[in-house]
């Protein structure tokens, strides 16, 4: 059970990332007031709902309202020649509109307030929702009207500073994290594999050159370079993947080189050479498959690094602003005053998402490593036995 937990979690997250927010009924774009609380959090706050009357719907929509006044109220749709929209409250009725044609009214508009006999300085939602009780939106004549009532809570995870659904952003961000993490690590692993093979098998000057490059790249702080490159090249997703992979192949190259060095002089490789196998044949039919299991583990162990780097760059604002990612969500939360609004729900999902996905890949990587190198597994088992004894 525990063995497969990470793999199962990975499958689940991958499915979620591929499906996207659509099938879950989540929509991108502005859905509720900025920094709405998660729906389940505080049931005394008004929720965000839509009331529809007219074409295809019944002529009246009733709700029972048990909260304080909502933050925003707006009306959209169209009225026919003799149409009239009425708002029925426990303490009196309002005629919201009887002008034929297209309608786009917002409770913040002063003409709208005037038309209803409300002072321009008064808060219209609290005038429309004077107390708790039964309310109804009713339509007389022909027409098609939608009334949006926006309260202070929304959905599963609330909304961000632009009123976008955090749950939809979260699913979108998951996709970005997985794409960047896996693509960058795959490219980096391919780079590392080829350079490691080259360096280990060729030896001599090539080897010295590659290893020197590894040393140098390992002792330069990479984040500033990535920032500068992202700033110059542009901030698209694939640019990010390329620059991340350019600066993370070093570990794999070292591992592959070490393996190639030991394999190169193994007696079975010498035998292959003795029967006249060409270099490419030995490299690609024997050495590469030999390194493959460890490489797979390397990929899984490398993904957290790439995801963290991507999140870091996005957090610094160096990612495509149109593309929601977890780093970007934290960037927005930090930049647009999530603290000042106490909006912890705009911080926790993205951060926990990054951490969980990294933990998951670390776990998968360790398991693959144990598979690839049974000695490691034996060591772990030995340790478990020692710990049980201690």
């Amino acid at each position: 059970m525990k063995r497969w937990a990470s793999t199962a979690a990975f499958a689940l997250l991958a499915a979620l990332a591929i499906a996207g927010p659509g099938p879950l009924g989540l929509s991108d774009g502005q859905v509720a007031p900025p920094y709405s609380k998660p729906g389940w959090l505080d049931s005394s706050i008004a929720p965000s709902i839509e009331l529809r009357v007219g074409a295809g719907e019944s002529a009246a929509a009733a709700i029972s309202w048990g909260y304080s006044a909502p933050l925003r109220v707006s009306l959209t749709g169209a009225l026919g020649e003799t149409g009239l929209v009425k708002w029925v409250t426990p303490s009196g009725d309002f005629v919201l509109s009887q002008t034929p044609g297209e309608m786009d009214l917002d409770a913040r508009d002063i003409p709208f307030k005037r038309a209803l006999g409300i002072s321009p300085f008064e808060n219209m939602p609290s005038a429309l929702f004077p107390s708790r009780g039964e309310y109804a939106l009713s339509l007389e004549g022909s027409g098609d009207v939608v009334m949006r009532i926006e309260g202070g809570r929304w959905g599963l995870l609330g909304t961000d500073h632009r009123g976008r659904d955090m749950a939809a952003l979260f699913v979108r961000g998951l996709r970005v994290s997985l794409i960047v993490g896996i693509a960058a690590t795959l490219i980096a692993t391919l780079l590392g594999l080829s350079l490691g093979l080259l360096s280990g098998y060729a030896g001599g000057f090539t080897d010295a050159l590659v290893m020197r490059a590894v040393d140098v790249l390992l002792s330069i702080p990479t984040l500033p370079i990535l920032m500068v490159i992202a700033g110059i090249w542009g901030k698209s997703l694939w640019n990010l993947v390329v620059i991340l992979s350019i600066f993370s192949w070093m570990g794999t190259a070292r591992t592959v080189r070490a393996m190639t060095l030991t394999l190169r002089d193994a007696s079975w490789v010498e035998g292959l050479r003795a029967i006249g196998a060409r270099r490419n044949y030995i490299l690609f039919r024997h050495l590469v498959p030999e390194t493959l299991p460890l490489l797979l583990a390397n990929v899984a162990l490398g993904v957290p690094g790439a995801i963290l780097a991507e999140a870091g760059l996005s957090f610094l604002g160096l990612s495509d602003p149109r593309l929601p990612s977890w780093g970007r969500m934290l960037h927005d939360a930090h930049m647009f005053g999530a603290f000042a609004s106490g909006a912890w729900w705009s911080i926790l999902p993205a951060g926990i998402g990054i951490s969980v996905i990294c933990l998951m890949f670390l776990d998968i990587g360790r398991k693959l490593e144990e598979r690839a190198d049974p000695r490691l597994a034996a060591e772990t088992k030995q340790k478990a036995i020692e710990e049980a004894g201690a």
Partner: protein
Amino acid sequence: MTAPLKRIGGSLVVLAVVLALNFFLFRVMPGDPLTSIVDPRFSPEAKAELASQWGLDRPLSEQFVVYVREMLSFRFGLSMMTGAPVWDELKRRVPNTVALLLPALVLSASLGIWLGVKAALNRGSTVERVVLWSGTVSFSFPSFFVQILLLMCFAYFWRIFPLSGTTSIPPPTGGAAAIDYIWHLALPLFSLVVMGFGGFALYIRNMMVKALGEEYVLMARARGLPFRRVVWNHAFRSILPPVLTILLLSLPGVVSGAVITETVFSMNGVGRFLLEATNSHDYPAAGAAFFCLALLTVGCNLLADAAYVLVDPRVRREGSRE
């Protein structure tokens, strides 16, 4: 060539690569550097005038020589945003970054060593579990997330630390200034230590477990030496060189972390300066800030190398033999 000299040579190579990267990143990649700075509606004559003013009409090799000379003498030119010399801006920020990173490195390394050794001595104890977990956490939690959480807890919900800045505005004078500075530094420093010690502790625990199993440790115990002495003077002494290697390898990450930490806490350091310069396409300033961060890394590298000579007798002997 002696070993220390070889290491200094290595650092010089790193510095050369940094200089070359810095030069080519800004000059060669997107074609003409002028296009990114100058309004495209400028007349060709005005562009040529600007190019000659900035020395961009000379051959690339000549530009490179001039550039290296300027960089090494800290003449970074004028900022495109403020028009002030970049070095004047940086000079005020470098101490702030050093004041953040150096204590963070020292504290997290010492905490890591102490906990790592403790964990290796008490297998299966709570300390070991803490070490194993903190190691995993430091590899998988984004530092800025932890920092934002800390800010949220200790600066917003429970207001005992400032939300942002390096000093209060206006800055206090006299002895209060130092206290104010430390008060602003506390939360970033704490976050760096919390995120940093786990990696060290995990490595040190693993190496110490191996070292404690060696026969010379058994021998030392058999000779009746005090346990503390065996642990620290025999076992720990033998793993010091690899500990230094890990310290060395973690340096670039620590310096990279400065950019993020300074951004989260809005501190007045080189890292945030680099971010601001990059965002406003102020290339002289961004290049200079990157150079300063790389120089900081190389400098720490050299310090660690010097410590190597002190710690590893093999390096010393190798040096004297040749």
